[in-house]
């Protein structure tokens, strides 16, 4: 890992206990991470939005907004950072709630360094995967945006399983015209087969069955 690399993942530690916060900062730094620490969820939220790779290490119980509340808050935003919870209580209901809401891990204090580092690595991997997924989706969305309205119509009807002839009838044109549109759609979306087209439609959230069919 290169600390000077601006795209190196960043670990955000949020804990109200200063001693613990600093010790976590040192531990993560000793393992080669870039670390930023915050004394409260609100302090973290005040920070400029961060879009790079990273994860959160979050105490569950803090005065004011709790760690779980921060989790909910972040989840409502897009591109949430994965969260590793740490807690002095380790109560099961809280951990279940946190894990259900998508936490990577839930560590009762005190914990061995390797447990935290493993959890952080896992969170970063999850983040990276998520980022890749989002990037891919963004590309696909960009391609789909290039379709003309008529091409988009044809695309939707094709993935619903209609034949060219049926599409032509429905759109009031000839089968030949539809063939041309269809060819352009596949070209613009960089897809080679009908199956690829259907998969792509699913990724983009286009229904593959017409409401009436």
């Amino acid at each position, binding site marked *: 890992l290169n600390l000077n690399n601006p795209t190196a993942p960043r670990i955000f530690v949020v804990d109200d*206990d200063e*001693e*613990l916060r*600093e*010790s*976590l900062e*040192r*531990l993560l*730094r*000793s*393992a080669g991470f870039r670390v930023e620490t915050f004394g409260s969820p609100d302090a973290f939220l005040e920070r400029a939005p961060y879009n790079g790779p990273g994860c959160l290490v979050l105490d569950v*119980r803090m005065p004011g907004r709790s760690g779980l509340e921060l989790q909910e808050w972040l989840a409502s935003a897009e591109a949430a950072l994965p969260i590793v919870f*740490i807690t*002095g*209580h380790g109560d099961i209901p809280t951990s279940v709630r946190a894990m259900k809401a998508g936490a990577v891990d839930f560590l*009762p*204090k*005190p*914990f*061995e*360094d390797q447990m*935290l580092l493993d959890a952080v690595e896992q969170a970063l991997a999850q983040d990276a995967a998520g980022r890749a997924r989002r990037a891919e989706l963004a590309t696909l969305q960009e391609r789909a945006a290039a379709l003309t309205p008529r091409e988009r119509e044809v695309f939707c009807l094709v993935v619903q399983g209609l034949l060219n002839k049926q599409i032509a009838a429905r759109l009031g044109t000839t089968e030949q015209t539809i063939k041309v549109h269809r060819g352009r759609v596949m070209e613009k979306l960089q897809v080679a087969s009908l199956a690829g087209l259907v998969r792509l439609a699913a990724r983009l959230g286009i229904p593959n069955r017409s409401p009436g069919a």
Partner: protein
Amino acid sequence: MVVSLSRVKKVGLGAVLALLLPYAAAPAAGPPTPRRVLVLYAERKSLPSMELLDRGFQATLRARAAEPVEIYTEYLDLLRFQDNRLQQEQFAWYLRKYSGTHLDLIVCFGSRLLAPLLHCRDRPFTRVPILCATVGVRQLPAGAPNPRVTGILNPIDARGTLAAALRLQPETQRIVVVAGASGYERAWVEEARRDLHDYKSRLEFTYLVGQPKAELLRQVAVLPPHAVVLYLTFLRDGRGRLFASGDVLAELARVCNAPIYGISETYLGHGIVGGSVLSPQLLGARMGELALRVLAGAKPAAIPFARGAGALQFDARQLRRWGLPEERLPPGSTVLFPEPSFWARYRTQSAAATSLFALFAILAAMWHEASGRRRRPRRIRETLVPCRELVADLNAAVVDLPPDRVQGEIRSRLPVVARLLDVDRVELQQLGEEPRAFRTTHSWAVEGIGVGPLPIRADEFPRIFTEVAQGKVVAFSRPEAALDRRRKDFQSCRHAGVRSLAAIPLTLGGMTFGALVLTTHRAAREWPDELVLLLQLLTQVFAGALARGPAEIPPRGSRPPDRTVLAALSAPVALVDSEGAVLWLNDAWRRLAARSGAPLSSGVEEGTNYLELCRRVAALTKNGLEPLPDGLKAVLEARRTEFSCEYDCSTPAEERCHELLVETLQDDTAGLLVLHRDITQRKRLQAEAHQQLRQDADTARVTALGVMAASLAHELSQPLAAILSNSQAAQRFLSAEAPDFEEVRQILSAIGNSDRRAVEILRRLRSLIKREPAELRPLDLNELIHAVVDLAAGDARRRKANIVLELEPGLPRVFGDASQLHQVVLNLAMNGLEAMESGSDERRLAIRSRREEDGWVEVSVRDTGVGIPEEQLGQIFKAFHTTKSGGTGIGLWIARSFVEAHGGRIEAANNPEGSATFFFRLPPYEEETA
């Protein structure tokens, strides 16, 4: 003779009767025995009011008739079967049914019955007198006046009911009248409308008449403030569905947000507060009386229609529910359903309250140890003791005080609470006549703060009132920081100079009925969670006491006691003149005097000087009577109005305890009433309650420690986690190629800091558990042992064990905290007694004290129990170690903590014969002199 119904229709009722009953036209000749009475009820038998009418009527008639009476009863069920023709046929059928029966009187309940009856007037029934009672309306029934007819007009008393409601709730602005849809119910509504005409200008009236039931329920749930409901009847709703008034009322009462008043006795107990209610049974009885007069020969024409009246009756539970004070009831009111005794009704709550007391005591102690000590070191001693007393005494009040003294008891505790918690004002507030306001019922304030009572009212403190009314605690300091400046709450606080405020709901059975309100005006104070918890516990105590307290007692001494009443009492009573001479004794007194072991009643005759007797008895015996002569004298000399003392009057056969009450007769004689009351049972309950309290204290201590432990575990996890992470970070930094030693130095310093923090947390834990002696003074351990034995004697008796004392005279004193050492000895004694529970034949607990050669004082407690398994000897003083099945494992641990806090030692050993001895040794206070 058979007559078809079609013919009845054609010819008409009168003519048919003429055909059917020819012989009835003959004059009633000869003595008709028995007398026959036909009673017609307009409604079905299953209506509660019909049943009560019948009961009242029959009971009166049967009990007082000179000759035998045969009663024939019919129910016409007109409400459900309204068809007029059907009714005529029904009559025809009845008359046919009774054609062979010579009737002396017809009685009908319900004005609609009279006209059809009179239809038959020119034929056979012409001479049968008729009595008619109207139910609910004041109009003469159709057909009257008539020389054959008299009766009772029995209108609903809407006016009297509303007057009572307004007395109870003078702020009332709106009256919501509820009634069903049937004709008979509408007649009631008209009656009410006329009756309430005078109020029309002053109050707003809403008539919810004939609504579908669901709609009615929806509407009464959201009535505006200052409304009351006047419930007339609800037998048929707008959709034609039939109901029972009582059932609908009960549903209404569950959802209605305003008090409901009603006009029938049958509604009491179904949710009405009360009212001037018609009593069907009474009406029945009056009709019975009227029937007797007519059967005896009186002519109906000579008896004018009488007028019935409502009786003022109220439901104590509803009065309490809506916070309506009984003293506002109109004169002559009867209160039904008075509260059952505290023990009967609140057995579970009070058991909970008892353990809350204990928990309160423990938490109070801990709280002061934990936070109070550092913040207000001067106060510890002042606050801890009253705090314990507060709990103990209030407990006594709840368990045992007569209700009329609870209020005073509560009042006297408020200053203690204020001082204890360092606030300027303490108030107990309860819901009063106004629906959205508390009124201050008990208050106390520091002198010179210049602020009067501060009742939390919705119009002044909308937010605070709402929160508290919902059962939530409101606590804040500095209103400018805690409250919205634009809101009324803030303005009201500023106006009253409130710097901080805590309002804790008074609840019972889940219902909020008031609040404990604490305010400071000179300085702001914080309300930490522990404190709020304490306040909630305290409030529970007050709530329990208040629930028990407010029962009104009849005014005493307003009349000289009636001797016939006194004579019938089961309690021994004597009347004594102002010189102390006995004027009169009741039989119960003589019976008590005849028993053995009744020193204050035997030998007493008319003329005996009771004061002299008391002096003699008090001088001779030592059973608690020492203050009696002076107390009695004080009442005789009118320096006090009453005096009471308890005394032991056990016989060899049984333990008994009596209470002697002396009270001034507030009449011209200036004499006294002397009364003995057997309080054996009460004492026993009290003793059991104390026993329970002791056990609860143990449980509570452990529970509280558990809570504390959980919180400490969290606090400890912080520094421990920091230490671990730091040390592991340091290792990583050191394993780098060029270790950053500055970084590592910082880490080591951080580790030191975290460690010190952990130690501090542990120190706090220790100081909570092993308290340092709080009130040190020289103590005589022998005295202390005597005190403990007094306490444990009851327990020992129950366990059939003897406590033997072998105390060395002239024992050196020790320097210590009496309550702690007291507890040490008590714990060891109880431990010994429990050890002898099983097995041992001879149960003997020997408590010994002696001065050792080195000058230390040793106390030993030796039992004849089963001893301690050798392998456990080293463990028994550890926390949570127990050998008893029900033990908490904490008693001996506490004993050790206390002894060690006094610089002493505690040990246990098995005796050669197998039982155990516990020793503790303490250093002497005096320097070695001899």
